[in-house]
């Protein structure tokens, strides 16, 4: 790739916006996922009693909705990112490409 093309991209304010937005959103969601997952693992390691508590009269415990919740959370957080990236980020990318390639 030619150096002047790279410079044009780097100098494009929309490129800086894309980079900043994607990086902050991506890392925020990554941390959210890590906190949820390792939080769950630490709960399993240190507070088994909490997860084994029964919910109401039946045999279902607190752990069941929490465990299912982690799975559903994982799927939803992925969908959230992909939806935003496939609209907002792709629009920005298209605008940058158009601007620098003319």
């Amino acid at each position, binding site marked *: 790739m030619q150096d002047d093309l790279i410079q044009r991209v780097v100098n494009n304010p929309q490129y800086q916006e894309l980079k900043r937005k994607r990086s902050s959103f991506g890392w925020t969601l990554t941390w959210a996922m890590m906190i949820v997952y390792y939080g*769950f*693992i630490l709960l399993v390691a240190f507070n088994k009693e909490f997860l084994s508590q029964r919910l109401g009269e039946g*045999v279902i415990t607190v*752990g069941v909705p929490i465990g299912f919740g982690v799975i559903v959370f994982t799927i939803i957080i*992925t969908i959230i990112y*992909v939806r935003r990236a496939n609209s907002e980020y792709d629009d920005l990318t298209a605008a940058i490409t158009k601007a620098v390639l003319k």
Partner: protein
Amino acid sequence: MNMKNTTKSALALISLLAVSSGAFAAGADLGQSVKQPTNWVAIGMFAGFVIFTLFITKWAAAKTKSAADFYTGGGGITGFQNGLAIAGDYMSAASFLGISAAVMASGFDGLIFSIGFLVGWPVITFLMAERLRNLGKFTFADVAAFRFEQKPIRIFAASGTLVVVAFYLIAQMVGAGQLIKLLFGLEYYMAVIIVGALMMVYVLFGGMTATTWVQIIKACLLLGGATFMSLAVLWKFGFSFESMFASAVQIKTDLALKDGKIAEVAAAAGQSIMGPGNFVKDPISAISFGMALMFGTAGLPHILMRFFTVPSAKAARSSVMWATGWIGYFYLLTFIIGFGAISFVLTNPEFLDPVKGGLRGGGNMAAIHLSNAVGGNVFLGFISAVAFATILAVVAGLTLSGASAVSHDIYATVIKKGAANSADELRISKITTICLGILAVTLGILFEKQNIAFMVSLAFAIAASANFPVLFMSVLWKDCTTRGALVGGFLGLISSVALTVVSPSVWEVTLGNPKGSALFPYASPALFSMTIGFVGIWLFSIMDNSARAKKDRDGFLAQQVRSETGIGADGASGH
């Protein structure tokens, strides 16, 4: 279920992807399954699958002309299709049989496991998927070596790929042999040869196109079969989770009473399947193992390769989204299937081994017996055939990624310095495919009686400690250099293998040293070996003042522009 069995199944879980062999190894029958009477319905169904996929291979072969077609199917696979194929790659027979068996044995602990296998996917989506697609062409080495000196990084990446593929492949082959002996009543060596031969046909003639479609078909069959089974279980309980769980708790309580426990202890044992049990022994092992699963997923070469089969970054993102959805859904199903197995398999003497106790055919048969219980012999045949197809598809994907590492990274880039022509490269990948196929069959037969329970967790640990750090740092950290990536990557690779060798599952269980003599006490090395890998890359990069290091750092800007925007990337990886 008594404590001993719970511990055993927890141990077996560590090797989840090692298919049946894992649980056998940790269970009573040490990797040896009992040959069952020949099951003609299952063989018929499987034959149907094979004939259908061979037609697809024939169709794919006509489209596979260049090396690019071979590696990526010409880049013409949609996000949705690729998502299903990734899910197919990831949902091995072990996820299906192993997790449902684990849920049957210890309930909630099985769920903890499946969650670990799922949580790597969002991380891949947020940080890697689109960047990989924008930078890479055929293999993850394309990305890792993008701005670095090609030769050393390619050699490292090819080593990382081949080591991961080898361990994963052995686990799958041995698992296939045991499973087929069990399900179809064929001899072990015949089963291994059939898997090896079919896999070679798919990969040799159909390349990535055939491999992808085999994955997609298998993913649909597996998801369909598992959905049917779960619905059948829920239907029997009037679609009430509470009564499904209550029945399982009651059965576990009765079993404990039969074992001679007093009522109070038995009731506690029954209820214990609804909460975490012995799986997490110490927090370090739990976190370390969680890291291997979470980040190992982002370093598995056969998974990473799938990102190059789609035409754009958008399609790459869509494919991980679909994959995450299907895989998550699948793990929810295995939880229901496991609980269904408690109610309908553990209570039925037809499925129990009168001599040894436990399930007929070994611990991993929970889902298989359940298919018989809810759908009769025909559905049993269907699920058995799906389990076999699953192994076949995973093995084909692994072989393809190993072959690409040799032909694209070693032959075309290192030996021919990027000047190999497509026909020669294709020829080399086909020769490698044959070699890998023969190697896989040989290793499968050699390891028949070995305890290979550690192999899949080792593959994940290596992927997390060697491939992932190099990929991550080269894409995201400006100051990373060739030397840093090379030294850190190999440190991660060596430390993960070494720590696994001196961990209890290999040192004591496989090598037969006395209990308690293992130098490394934890279940997975990832926490330590990943740190070694990352620190190694960081340290050797910042200390690197060579001319090459300057070039590496100067190259970051161009790499970043391309990874963020795709400007300069191929429109489709078909060229």
